[in-house]
């Protein structure tokens, strides 16, 4: 069973004149954690729907656990998939535990799991309350619980942490990490990239329905050619010496009287540190490689650059290289 849980080849999806997805090639290996990033409308949800067999692609082939997801055979295979949709609103007069049991029956999972799962997601006491009284965070937790029913081999999560408080987000991450330790494959989309920067094996950036980048965080950092930022604390009189020491290896930008920021290519930063470190006037040195947020801002393009973090906006002209 080395069949890739998800394999997409040359996927395109058009709604009339609107192109939601174009030329998407993506293979997710067993046990891999793939994060999907892109602004709203970039095609993330459409991609999920295709993988779940809710929407047929206009062209290209999809296979999930070796079968096309909209085929008859795939209906049975869905027991191995856990899905958490974006903005799911459980409503009605059933209690949390009743609703979870309903989903367990549909998935043909032993009902005994339900109580434990509710406990795990922090809804132990609320399980006997009616779902319509739940807050957004509680509904999201219930969504997480139903996703984990039957220990699925593939988890698909659409914006799982949106609208959650930091505590719940941490709990969320650890539950997903637990499943991953157990060997589950994970496909997740999120705006809160920081949440998954370290956990994700690979990250895919979607922009206007196209994959603009896909790779590990290191690969993406290199490909984006975003500068490493070095913040040096030193008195104003040392600034000239600093500029002279780094020469043309880095761009020097004073922050305030006490600090200077150096922007340099990733492969240069060690050499620069050596020179900066040799200067007597230097107080502290802080190195910050580009965060996922910066890379994301870089790939989503200048037209969405309003949220770009400092240090990323000025390299936009560098072009979009694919790894």
């Amino acid at each position: 069973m080395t069949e890739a849980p998800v394999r997409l080849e040359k996927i395109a999806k058009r709604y009339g004149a609107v192109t939601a997805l174009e030329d998407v090639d993506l293979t997710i290996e067993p046990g891999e954690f793939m994060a999907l990033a892109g602004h709203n409308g970039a095609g993330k949800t459409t991609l999920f729907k295709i993988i779940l067999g809710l929407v047929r692609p206009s062209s290209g082939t999809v296979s999930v656990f070796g079968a096309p997801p909209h085929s008859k055979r795939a209906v049975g295979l869905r027991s191995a998939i856990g899905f958490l949709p974006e903005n799911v609103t459980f409503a009605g007069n059933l209690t949390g535990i009743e609703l979870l049991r309903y989903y367990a029956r549909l998935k043909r999972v032993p009902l005994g799991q339900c109580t434990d799962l509710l406990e795990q997601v922090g809804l132990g006491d609320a399980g006997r309350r009616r779902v319509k009284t739940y807050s957004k965070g509680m509904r999201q937790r219930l969504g997480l619980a139903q996703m984990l029913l039957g220990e699925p081999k593939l988890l698909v999560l659409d914006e799982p942490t949106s609208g959650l408080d930091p505590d719940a987000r941490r709990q969320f991450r650890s539950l997903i990490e637990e499943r991953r330790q157990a060997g589950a494959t994970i496909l997740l989309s999120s705006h809160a990239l920081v949440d998954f920067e370290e956990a994700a094996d690979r990250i895919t950036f979607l922009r206007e329905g196209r994959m603009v980048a896909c790779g590990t965080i290191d690969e993406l950092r290199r490909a984006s050619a975003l500068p490493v930022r070095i913040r040096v604390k030193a008195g104003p009189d040392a600034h000239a010496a600093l500029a002279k020491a780094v020469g043309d290896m880095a761009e020097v930008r004073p922050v305030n009287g006490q600090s200077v920021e150096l922007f340099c290519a990733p492969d240069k930063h060690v050499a620069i540190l050596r020179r900066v470190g040799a200067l007597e006037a230097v107080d502290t040195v802080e190195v910050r490689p580009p965060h996922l947020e910066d890379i994301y801002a870089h790939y989503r393009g200048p037209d969405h650059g309003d949220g770009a973090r400092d240090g990323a906006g000025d390299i936009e002209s560098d072009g979009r290289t694919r790894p």
Partner: protein
Amino acid sequence: MNAVVTIAGREIREGVRNRWVLATTLVLAALALTLAFLGSTPAGTVKASALAVTVVSLSSLSIFLLPLIALILTFDGIAGEAERGTLLLLLSYPVARWQIVLGKFLGHTAILAFATLVGYGATGLVVGLTQESGAGGWAPYLAMVGSSILLGAAFAAVGTLVSAVARERAVAGGLGIGLWLFFVIVFDMALLGILAADTNQTIGSATVPWLLMLNPADIYRFFNLASFGDVSTFAGLAGLSESVRIAPPAMLGALVVWIVAPLGLAALAFQRRSL
């Protein structure tokens, strides 16, 4: 098939919990009892049994009420889940789309059937046991209760179809009310108008009963008012000549078609719907 039962079971449980079952049963029982006692006064003068009188008044009421209840109960079934985002979730489960359609329909129909059976059944018992009534009165009454359930099911099927095709909950609700108006009020008036204008030239009197088969509410009316001699006397339909009669089993068959066809269409439309 297991999934169908699970989905139907959830609808029933939800119906019990939000008191739909209780409310519907009470409304049907209260109206049936009221009609039974109000209507039983003149029974002696026309020599119709009390139960037969009740059949006439109650079936006339059911024609308005049952389709309305059925449509209100069902329009939200799939459209509502689509709007809340739970439909997407449900479809990611090992459940076929037709199972969702069938499960929702069966759950809602079970609620309707229960309410009809208890509400009308209790009335039947009260009337049958307290008033002078020949044994012959029971057959039309039981047939009325049974066909009421079929009528409810037919409109539940129509409502499920609406819910499966509508893009939004509000649209489904509007369509449901529109269909109710059409089948319960507009259809008969339109038919009457056409017949009056036609003055028996192209549409013969033998055709009319068949035209009524195009409307489940009319099938129900026709079945209950013309099938049993005792009832049709009281309903004023005794003059209806044999030639324009349709055999009662055929009418029941037509009602069943009105259940199966919309349901099949709903499954088909839902299968093709892209979400």
